[in-house]
């Protein structure tokens, strides 16, 4: 006993004095250094690179970088209707997907939480879309939305939602964005379902029972107790979906390639077209800076507003 007390006091003494040798395993630098180096490669380096190269343009005929001052930036903000179009489409995409996924997720989570038979099995099945490779999911839905043979298209024609001249994919592109949104909603509604379900499971039962005893009906219990208590998990879910939706690329590349008539071209896809299809690397880097700024800023503001902690 006495030994242990002595040891403890020695330990706390050590802590108070903060006498650490540099070459000891108490030094966090050694623990953190490898990861920070790796992450530097993935965040700071691309940012600096894009910033630097946004002042240049790559001449593919001469194979050299030409200094163009701020022309890329001026073009981007004053003279690029295609970028504005892509920005609008991205915002539309983010807003629609987020609202639909959140509402659907909430409803289905409440259903699953009201204890149907085999709810465990159903939960497992509902995970599957989420872990399907996005590229494969895009192909799956390209088949389902095929303008002639697609099951979804045929369903839509027979119920009169769509007409054959204006199919989901192709045509004038009126529904091109919808066709991509369907995949996103299919893949990521389960994310909201599971996250809200986790929140519902951790809910204090006494509170709900007390409300029931006090005569609150189902709807009141939902809006006055459950949803406020779910606020925390929902903000986290929205944060992750928000940043991922901003960078939507896979589905568009697989399904519509931004078309028809640019009606499903997101900012990410536009940046990709510039850099890889048209070899305008300098301009692509400029858009890259904007996308990074958008993603970082939205995440940072969101995190500050909702006081998220890790």
């Amino acid at each position, binding site marked *: 006993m006495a030994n242990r007390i002595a040891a*403890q006091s020695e*330990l706390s003494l050590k802590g108070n004095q903060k006498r650490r040798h540099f070459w000891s*395993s*108490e030094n*966090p630098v050694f*623990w*953190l250094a*490898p*990861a*920070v180096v*790796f*992450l530097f*490669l*993935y*965040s700071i380096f*691309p940012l600096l*690179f*894009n910033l630097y190269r946004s002042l240049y343009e790559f001449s593919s005929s001469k194979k050299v970088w030409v200094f163009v001052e701020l022309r890329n930036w001026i073009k981007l903000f004053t003279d690029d209707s295609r970028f504005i179009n892509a920005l609008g489409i991205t915002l539309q995409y983010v807003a629609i997907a987020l609202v639909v996924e959140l509402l659907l997720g909430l409803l289905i989570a409440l259903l699953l939480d009201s*204890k*149907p038979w085999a709810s465990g099995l*159903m939960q497992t*099945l*509902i995970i*599957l*879309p989420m*872990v*399907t*490779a*996005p*590229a*494969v*999911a895009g*192909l*799956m839905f390209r*088949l389902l939305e095929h303008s*002639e*043979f697609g099951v979804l298209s045929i369903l839509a024609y027979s119920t009169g939602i769509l007409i054959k001249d204006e199919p989901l994919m192709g045509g004038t592109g009126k529904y091109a964005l919808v066709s991509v949104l369907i995949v996103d909603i*299919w893949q990521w509604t389960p994310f909201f379902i*599971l*996250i809200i379900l*986790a929140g519902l499971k951790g809910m204090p039962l006494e509170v709900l029972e007390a409300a029931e005893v006090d005569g609150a009906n189902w709807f009141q219990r939902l809006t006055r107790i459950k949803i406020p208590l779910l606020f925390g998990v929902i903000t*986290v879910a929205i944060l*992750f979906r928000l*940043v991922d939706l901003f960078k939507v*690329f896979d589905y568009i590349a*697989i399904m519509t390639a931004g078309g028809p008539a640019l009606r499903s071209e997101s900012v990410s896809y536009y*940046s*990709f077209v510039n*850099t890889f299809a048209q070899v305008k*690397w300098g301009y*692509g*880097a400029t*858009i890259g*800076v904007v996308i*990074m700024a*958008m*993603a*970082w800023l939205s*995440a940072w503001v969101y995190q500050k507003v909702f006081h998220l902690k*890790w």
Partner: protein
Amino acid sequence: MTATTFTNITNEQRQANREYQRRQHRRKFVEKILVTLLTLVIVVVFVFPIFYWARLSITPYKYVFTIPPRFDFPATTTAWWNVVMGQKSYSDVMLEQVGGNTGVGGAGTSGYDIRPRIVNSVSIAGLSTLVVMIVATFTAYALSRFDMRFKQNIVFFVLSTRFMPGVAVVLPLYLMYREIGLYDTRFGLILAHVVINLPIAVLLLKSFFDDVPRDLDDAAMVDGCTRFGAFWRIIVRYVAPGLAAAAVLCFIFSWNEFLFSLYLTRTPELQTVPVTIRTYDASAGTTEWGLMSAAGTAAVIPVFIFVLFVQRYLIRGLTLGAVRG
């Protein structure tokens, strides 16, 4: 007191009570059936695309594009799987399926063989996961245990790399890789997958380390372990399930990754499975639905099996430890 009230209940009241409870029971039962049916419909909607895709991979060509669409399994074949698994050549199968020269021809056995790509994908996902786990375990432990300045900033820095838009990163990475000769190498792609998965693994593992009480470290160090000894001999053993879950998740993310795999490789031998499947699209002027579905099914089945083991941790992984499912 309770006894007197009990004796005051008449037989009629008792009867009524029993009747009431029976009715409540029946209502609950009906409610449960309705809820189950409704949920079942929703689950079917979510699973249907996968089912339809897998069905396509074992259905002969002439039953694939029918109006109205069919959902049964007529004349189940392994034709597409034979091509994808390199057992038969594509043109042979087309002859079998369509019964004539399709004018596609050309592509031999090797052109569609998915097996080398699966091996490639497994090696890339496996090696990158290994590196991620080694690096992330140390970092996560430090972020969980040490009191240091700028800790919140470091955590947010790690978090913010998770938010990096891929297309904005892939161009600098692509140009740098071309400069230093990593472009179109397996090592380069593994490195890219490491940095993609690192923030996820670090923060997820941090949440697992946070679950282990600090007293355990202190006890180990009182007993004579160094900090590293406490970490290696004690704490890592406690988070072993978490490590396994994080590793499986990183493997899945790397396996499914598309953008970087597409742009950091060029030779077919180095392409991962999702990228390869995309090349079946319009590879000879037509969209090879049969082949894409067979290869796509081959790509998703292992993931479905893996995810069964980490179901519990999936939400925790996707939210980087913020929500504990």
